[in-house]
């Protein structure tokens, strides 16, 4: 309990004999400065090392006269990004759509099936092997079959990417829904909560940290799935993604263009990582240990 002591009479306000009139103690400026430094370093360090690596690469290519059809300098890649921008961006947009929809379907499917598993042991026991088989079979091995059976290329690619992203969501949702504190479960039993109330007020919030962790993983996996599937499909033509641009460029020995497409894929991956991290902060920031900033 907090108790606030208020000074009620001048008697009590008098400082004890011998004590110096209190001034506020000096601030621990060292600690404050260290904290500020840390905050700045958290941004500066990664950016600085990145810039340094790029500069080193540029210098190394120029100094050794490496031909651009072997390893292009970063400036050359940037130039290609600029000139080929429109066509590459169109492909990037295709990959973004593919990644996003497969992630969306993975979330919907994983959460629904996970909830079903958590509600019923027998459903879990009968269906879980299928989920595991889907997970352990490499997507490159199934992709050709899917491409044969599914006429629409986009849908076929979507299925491939979905397979990769689905499992982490499913398994973490199941674990998360089972992770609720057992005393809280008893409390809900005591107060005769309906299954729906239990799911909504207890199981779902308990599962949220697990789900957000899975989302971070699945976001990256969806992108990998989308790119790998497209490689397997070897799709060409207008309406295709960044993987196809990389394959084309490699056939034509356009190394700078390959790099440019690669940069876009990486940027996409980074964007997904940042977005899922931000989402996790927003959802869990006010209560879960993993996202709480500790005051030191």
């Amino acid at each position, binding site marked *: *309990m907090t108790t606030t002591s208020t000074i009620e009479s001048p008697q009590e306000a008098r400082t004890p004999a011998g004590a110096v009139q209190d001034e506020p103690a000096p601030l621990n400026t060292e600690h404050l400065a260290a904290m500020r430094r840390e905050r700045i370093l958290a941004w500066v360090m990664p950016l600085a090392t990145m810039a340094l690596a790029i500069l080193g690469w540029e210098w190394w290519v120029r100094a050794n006269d490496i031909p651009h059809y072997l390893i292009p300098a970063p400036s050359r890649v940037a130039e290609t990004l600029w000139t080929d921008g429109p066509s590459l961006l169109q492909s990037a947009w295709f990959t973004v759509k593919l990644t996003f929809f497969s992630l969306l379907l993975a979330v919907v499917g994983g959460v629904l099936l996970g909830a079903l598993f958590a509600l019923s042991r027998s459903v879990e026991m009968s269906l879980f092997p299928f989920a595991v088989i889907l997970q352990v079979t490499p997507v490159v091995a199934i992709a050709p079959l899917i491409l044969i059976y599914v006429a629409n290329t986009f849908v076929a690619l979507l299925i491939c990417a979905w397979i990769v992203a689905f499992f982490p969501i499913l398994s973490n949702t199941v674990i998360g829904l089972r992770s609720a*504190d057992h*005393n*809280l479960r*008893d*409390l809900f039993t*005591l107060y*005769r909560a309906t299954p729906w109330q239990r799911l909504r007020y207890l199981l779902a919030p308990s599962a949220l940290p697990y789900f957000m962790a899975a989302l971070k993983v699945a976001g990256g996996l969806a992108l990998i799935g989308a790119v790998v599937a497209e490689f397997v499909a070897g799709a060409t033509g207008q309406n295709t993604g960044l993987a196809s641009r990389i394959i084309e460029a490699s056939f034509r020995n356009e190394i700078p263009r390959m790099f440019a497409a690669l940069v876009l894929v990486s940027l996409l991956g980074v964007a997904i990582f940042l977005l899922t991290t931000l989402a996790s902060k927003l959802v869990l920031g006010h*209560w*879960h240990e993993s996202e709480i900033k500790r005051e030191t």
Partner: protein
Amino acid sequence: MNQPLIRMDRVRKEFGRSVVAVDNMSLTIEKGDFISFLGPSGCGKSTALRMIAGLLPVTAGTIDIKPPEAGEQAEQDLGFVFQEPTLMPWARVFDNVWLPLRLAGVGRNRARERVEQALREVGLSKFERAYPRELSGGMKMRVSIARAMVTRPRILLMDEPFAALDEMTRMKLNNDVVRLSAEHGLTVVFVTHSVFESVYLSNRIVVMAARPGRVAEELQVGAPWPRGDDFRTSQTYADECRRVSAELKETLHDDDIDH
């Protein structure tokens, strides 16, 4: 006709085939009683309490709780306070205390007055909007008590609620529990390891022994109500503590010889 509030009749609880957690436990608890279950770790205190709450099925025997009379209706007859505060970390203090009413279909606005009153009674009015992690251990326990009280139960079951708290906080909370139980005419079953706590709080102490868990004996605490800090420093309190300690030692000593 004059049915006791809670009657346990030859209750037995087995876990698996070999563990007998509670054996042949018979007990009657009257309205207004403050009963302590006192005994060493593993003697089945929690198990007995959870069976009374209906959270565990009995293996044999019966537990009867007298149904509430007209005018005694509450959303929930039983309040339960666990050893840990057991709050929902994602919910604010208000929402944690609201939970029992919410589960009974009482909306936020209709519940507001009662939630606020429950928080006021444990001295936490100002912390409605705090998250559990922002509270000290003692404050969390108070929230837990407020949550148990918000349905205005007739019976309060507490499983070593203050075991993890420091002595000062524990004394304060003991006073709170005494006050709340008197004000609301509660019947309390209180599980504890501590002789001092059980003497301070209860009018009857049920001493339990282990392997198998059973009632070793029942003691009356001969001290008047209401009890406060005066009682804690009184000669009566010291005498009763000494007597209960001696009885407990004897019981547990017999136990050692038996096994």
